[in-house]
C-alpha cells in the first residue's frame, strides 16, 4: 500500500488537497480523502447586512463561476420578499446564466482539464499535414448539428471555424518546439508528461488540441461580453434585487441597453455557438471515442448510485421558489434525484425535488462529522440550512503540526467542507447529474411534452452513445461521461442563450422595456421576518442559497454549493462523497505520478472557494484591520 498526497491540486478554483491509498500491485485505490483546505467565512460577513446587497458580497465566493452566486442570491431574496421580476429581467438573467455556462465549460475543458488528456510534448512529434487531415476528419465525423428552433439567424456564416491547413499547425508546432527548446517551460513546467496516458492519443490529436487551447484562451473573453453589456463588467457583473439594473430604452440617447448594445450580445451568442459546435464538441468526442475504445470508463463513483439536480431557466417572470413557482416554470425540468443509474435505466429510481422538499426540515441538510466545525450538543446530527449552526473547530492533521501537515485524519475531522445530504444520503451534482435525470425521466415516461431543450438533451445523449459504441448507462457515470456531459451542457446553454435572446427581442418589440419591479424595494414593504431559497443549476451543478431576513437585515445566510455536494468529507452512515468515491473507482497506473487522480478530480471542475465558506455561528467581533489609507 502506498499513501499518496496531491496538494495543491492545480487548474481548479481554490485550495484542494487529496490523499489516496493505492495498492501498487493492481493500481486500485482503497481509500481516498478530499479536503478543502481554506475557509473564508463569507456567510458570517453577510449577517446584519442589507438583503439587497447580498448578491454583491456572496458573488465573491467565486470569480470563476462569477454570476452564479449573484443569481442564486437575488433569487433567494426575491423568494423571501415575495418579488416577481419582470419578463425582460428574467430573460436577461437567463442569458447571463447560460453565457456563464458556455464560457465556464469551455475554459474548463481547454485550460483546466485538457492538459490531463493532451500534452505539448507529444505534439512535437505530430505531422502538421496529418494534423490538418485529422482536423477535417474530426469535423466530418463529430460535428453534432443541434439547434434551437430560432426566430432569426443573424449569422451570415460561421465566423469562428477551425483552421485545417498544414501551415497553421506547423506554426503552432514551431512555437511549442521553441518553448521546449528554451528550457523555460512556464505553465508547462514540472508536470508528469512522461505518464503513459499521454500515449493513448496519436501525436496529431495532441497538436490539434494544443492549437485549440491557445485559440480558446484568446476567444473566451469575447463570449462573456453579455455580462459586460448587461452587468457592466466580468468577473462579478452587477445585479439588483427585483430585476436588472440595465434599463432598456430605444428612445433615449444614453440608455444602458439599446439596439447597438443588443447587437454586441447577439454577436457573442453566435460566437459561443460556433466555438462549441466547431471546436469544443468535436474535440471532446474525438478524444472521448479513443478513451472509450481503450476501455477507459472508470471514475464513475457516486454518479453510479445517486445524482441530484435542481433544474433551471424559468420561462417567464415567476414568483416564489419555496412556494413552487420556480419548478412550475422550467425549460429543463431536471429537478430530482436518480438512484442506481449504473444498474440500467429500468432499475434506476427517480424521486422529484419539490418546493415542499426545500422547506421540509429533514430532506436537505448538512452534517459536520468529518468537517472542521461542531454543532451544539443538543442539536440533531444534520441541520436544515435555514436552521444551520456552524462553529469552526480546527483539529489539525493526523501527522505533522497544525500549520504543517503530513497526513490528514480520515478517522476524525479533515476538511473545511460540510457534508450536504438529501434524505440523509450523499449525492453527486453537475452537468452529468442534470443529464442523467433528464434521460431517466424520459425513459420512465415522466417527462410529458418535453421542451425543445429537453428533446435536444436526449438527442445529444443518443448521438454520443452511438459514436462511443456503448449505452448511456455505461459511458455516462464515468470520468469521461462527466467531462462529456459538461460539453453537451455547453452546447445546450449556447442554444438556450439564443432562445432567450429571441424572447427578449420579441418582448421589447411589444413595447415592454421594464427591467425592474420596485414595488418591494424599500424595507417598510417587507415582512418583519421571512425566509427564502434561491436555486440555480450552475455550471458545476445544483446550487442553493438560503436566507433568513429579520427586521430588514439578513439574520442567517447559507449556501449549499455544487462543490460542497461533490467534494465533501465522508459521513460514517452515508459513506463517501463524490470526489472520494470517484477516486476510489479510478485505476492508478503509477502511484508516484497519480495523473489519473488529478484527472478524475478535475472531471468535476472543482471550485473550492465556493465550497468552503460556511459559517453562521455567533461569531465574535475580532480584529478588524484598518486598511483605509484616508482613515488613519
Amino acid at each position, binding site marked *: 500500500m502506498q499513501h499518496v498526497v496531491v496538494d495543491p491540486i492545480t487548474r481548479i478554483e481554490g485550495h484542494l488537497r487529496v490523499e489516496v491509498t493505492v495498492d501498487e500491485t493492481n493500481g486500485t485505490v482503497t481509500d481516498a480523502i478530499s479536503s478543502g483546505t481554506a475557509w473564508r467565512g463569507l456567510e458570517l460577513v453577510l449577517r446584519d447586512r442589507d438583503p439587497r446587497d447580498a448578491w454583491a458580497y456572496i458573488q465573491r465566493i467565486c470569480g470563476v463561476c462569477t454570476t452564479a452566486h449573484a443569481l442564486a442570491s437575488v433569487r433567494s431574496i426575491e423568494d423571501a420578499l415575495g418579488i416577481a421580476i419582470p419578463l425582460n429581467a428574467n430573460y436577461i438573467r437567463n442569458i447571463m446564466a447560460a453565457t456563464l455556462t458556455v464560457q465556464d465549460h469551455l475554459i474548463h475543458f481547454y485550460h483546466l482539464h485538457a492538459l490531463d488528456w493532451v500534452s505539448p510534448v507529444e505534439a512535437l512529434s505530430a505531422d502538421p499535414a496529418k494534423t490538418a487531415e485529422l482536423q477535417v476528419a474530426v469535423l466530418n465525423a463529430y460535428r453534432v448539428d443541434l439547434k434551437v428552433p430560432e426566430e432569426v439567424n443573424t449569422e451570415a456564416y460561421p465566423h469562428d471555424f477551425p483552421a485545417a491547413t498544414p501551415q497553421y499547425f506547423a506554426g503552432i508546432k514551431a512555437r511549442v518546439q521553441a518553448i521546449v527548446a528554451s528550457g523555460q517551460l512556464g505553465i508547462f513546467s514540472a508536470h508528469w508528461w512522461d505518464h503513459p496516458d499521454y500515449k493513448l492519443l496519436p501525436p496529431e490529436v495532441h497538436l490539434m488540441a494544443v492549437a485549440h487551447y491557445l485559440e480558446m484562451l484568446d476567444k473566451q473573453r469575447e463570449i462573456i461580453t453579455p455580462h459586460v453589456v448587461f452587468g457592466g463588467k466580468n468577473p462579478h457583473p452587477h445585479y439588483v434585487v427585483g430585476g436588472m439594473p440595465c434599463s432598456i430604452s430605444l428612445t433615449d440617447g444614453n440608455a444602458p441597453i439599446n439596439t447597438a448594445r443588443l447587437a454586441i450580445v447577439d454577436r457573442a451568442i453566435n460566437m459561443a455557438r460556433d466555438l462549441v459546435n466547431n471546436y469544443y464538441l468535436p474535440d471532446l468526442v474525438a478524444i472521448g471515442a479513443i478513451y472509450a475504445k481503450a476501455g477507459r470508463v472508470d471514475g464513475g463513483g457516486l454518479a453510479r448510485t445517486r445524482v441530484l439536480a435542481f433544474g433551471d431557466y424559468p420561462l417567464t417572470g415567476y414568483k416564489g421558489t419555496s412556494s413552487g413557482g420556480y419548478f412550475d416554470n422550467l425549460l429543463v425540468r431536471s429537478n430530482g434525484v436518480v438512484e442506481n443509474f449504473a444498474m440500467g435505466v429500468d432499475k434506476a429510481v427517480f424521486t422529484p425535488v419539490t418546493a415542499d422538499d426545500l422547506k421540509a426540515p429533514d430532506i436537505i441538510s448538512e452534517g459536520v462529522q468529518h468537517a472542521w466545525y461542531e454543532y451544539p450538543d443538543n442539536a440533531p446530527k444534520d441541520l436544515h440550512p435555514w436552521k444551520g449552526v456552524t462553529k469552526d473547530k480546527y483539529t489539525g492533521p493526523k501527522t505533522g503540526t497544525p500549520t504543517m501537515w503530513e497526513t490528514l485524519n480520515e478517522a476524525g475531522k479533515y476538511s473545511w467542507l460540510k457534508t450536504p445530504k438529501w434524505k440523509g444520503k450523499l449525492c453527486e451534482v453537475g452537468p452529468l447529474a442534470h443529464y442523467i435525470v433528464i434521460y431517466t425521466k424520459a425513459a420512465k415516461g415522466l417527462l410529458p411534452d418535453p421542451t425543445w431543450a429537453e428533446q435536444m438533451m436526449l438527442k445529444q445523449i443518443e448521438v454520443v452513445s452511438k459514436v462511443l459504441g456503448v449505452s448511456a448507462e455505461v459511458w455516462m457515470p464515468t470520468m469521461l461521461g462527466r467531462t462529456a456531459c459538461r460539453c453537451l451542457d455547453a452546447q445546450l446553454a449556447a442554444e438556450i442563450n439564443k432562445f432567450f435572446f429571441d424572447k427578449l427581442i420579441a418582448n421589447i418589440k411589444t413595447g415592454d422595456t421594464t427591467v425592474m419591479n420596485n414595488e418591494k424595494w424599500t424595507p417598510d414593504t417587507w415582512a418583519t421576518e421571512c425566509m427564502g431559497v434561491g436555486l440555480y443549476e450552475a455550471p458545476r451543478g445544483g446550487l442553493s442559497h438560503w436566507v433568513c431576513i429579520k427586521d430588514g437585515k439578513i439574520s442567517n445566510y447559507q449556501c449549499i454549493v455544487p462543490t460542497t455536494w461533490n467534494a465533501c468529507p465522508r459521513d460514517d452512515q452515508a459513506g463517501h462523497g463524490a470526489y472520494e468515491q470517484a477516486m476510489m473507482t479510478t485505476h492508478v497506473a503509477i502511484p508516484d505520478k497519480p495523473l489519473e487522480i488529478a484527472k478524475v478530480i478535475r472531471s468535476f471542475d472543482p471550485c473550492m472557494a465556493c465550497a468552503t465558506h460556511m459559517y453562521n455561528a455567533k461569531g465574535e467581533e475580532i480584529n478588524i484591520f484598518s*486598511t483605509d489609507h484616508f482613515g488613519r
Partner: protein
Amino acid sequence: MEKRESLWEAYLRRGFSRRSFLKGCVALTSLMGFSTDMFSKVVEAAETKPLPVVIWIHGHECTGCDESFIRSGAPLASDVVLSSIALEYDHLLSAACGAPFEAHLDETIAKYNGQYILAVEGAVATKDSGVYCMSGGHTFTHLLEKAAKGAAAIIAYGSCAAYGGIQAAKPNPTGSAGIERFVGGKPVVKVPGCPPIPEVMTGVVMHVALFGSLPPCDSDGRPKQFFGNRIHDTCYRRPFFDAGMFAETFDDAGAKAGWCLYKLGCRGPETYNSCGNLRWWQGMSYPIQSGAPCIGCSNSNFWDEDPFTTRLPQYGKLGDVDKIGAALGVLTAAGVAGHAVASIVQRNQRENLIDEDHHE
C-alpha cells in the same frame, strides 16, 4: 546566473517578425497610458530587458483576479503567458500539481533569487497562525513569506491582496488582511479592484517586465497611470451630475435616459480606478454605463461602507445626497460649486497624506 531573454529575443525565438514586435510595443505604449513619444523607450526596454519570471500565488481569494487577467484584450493573455513572461507557478494555469509543482516553486525561487516578480492574489488569513488558508500542507503566510524574500517586485492583485477584501469585512472571521505586512518591508504595487480591470492587470506586469522597475505609484502604492483619477472625474455621465439630472429609482425615466446614479448610491465620486477611461473590454462598458451604481470595489474598506444603494452621509465624500440633490435641483451652479469645493477638500486631504508618508 544564466541570462534571461528579452521580449525581442522571445519574439525571435517564436518566429515573429520585427514588425509584429513593434506592433506589440505600440499596443503596450498606449496601454500603459504613455504618449507616443515614449514609444522608442518602450521598444528599447522590450529589446534589452530580460524576460521576467513570474510566480503567482493564491491566498484567501475567489480566482476572479486570475480570470480577469486572462480576459485581457491587449495584450492577449496567451501572448503574455507564453511570450512576454515566464509564468513558472500559478494555480490556475500551471499544468503540474502536488509535490513536483511545489518542488518546482522552490527551485524557481532559488534559481531566480532576487529576480522574479511575485504576483499575489488573495488576502492573508492571520487568525490562529493562519490555519484557515493552507496549501501544499503549509499556511499561505508561510508561502508568502518564503516567496517574498527573493522577489524583485511584488504585485498585490485585487482588493483582497491589497487590503484584505471580502473576507476582511466585518466581522472578519479569519483575521484576513492585505499582504503588505507579510513581505518583509518590500514595496508592494497595489492593484486594487474586485477584480481589477483586465488590461490594468496585464499593464502592470508588462510595465515591470519592460522597464525593469515598478510603475510610478501614489502614496498607497497604486500605479498612478491607472488609479490617478476618480471614476467620477472621467465618468461619461458626469455632465448629468453637474446638471443635477439623476436616476431616482432603478429603471425610472432617468435610469433609462442614462442620467447620473449618484442618488442610487454610486461610489464613483470617491473611487480611484480606470473604469471611466479604460472601461471594461477595451471601452465596451463599466457598471455605471450598464445602469448599475459603482460599489467602489477598488477602495480599501468598501465592503464595510454598505448599504451600497444608499449614500450614507459618513461615506458620501460630497456630503448628504438630499442636500446636494436639492441644491442641484434648484440651482445647478450652486451644486457645481459645492462639488468643486468638496473635490478640492478631498484633493488636499489626499495630497497632505502623500506628503506625510512619502516613502519612495
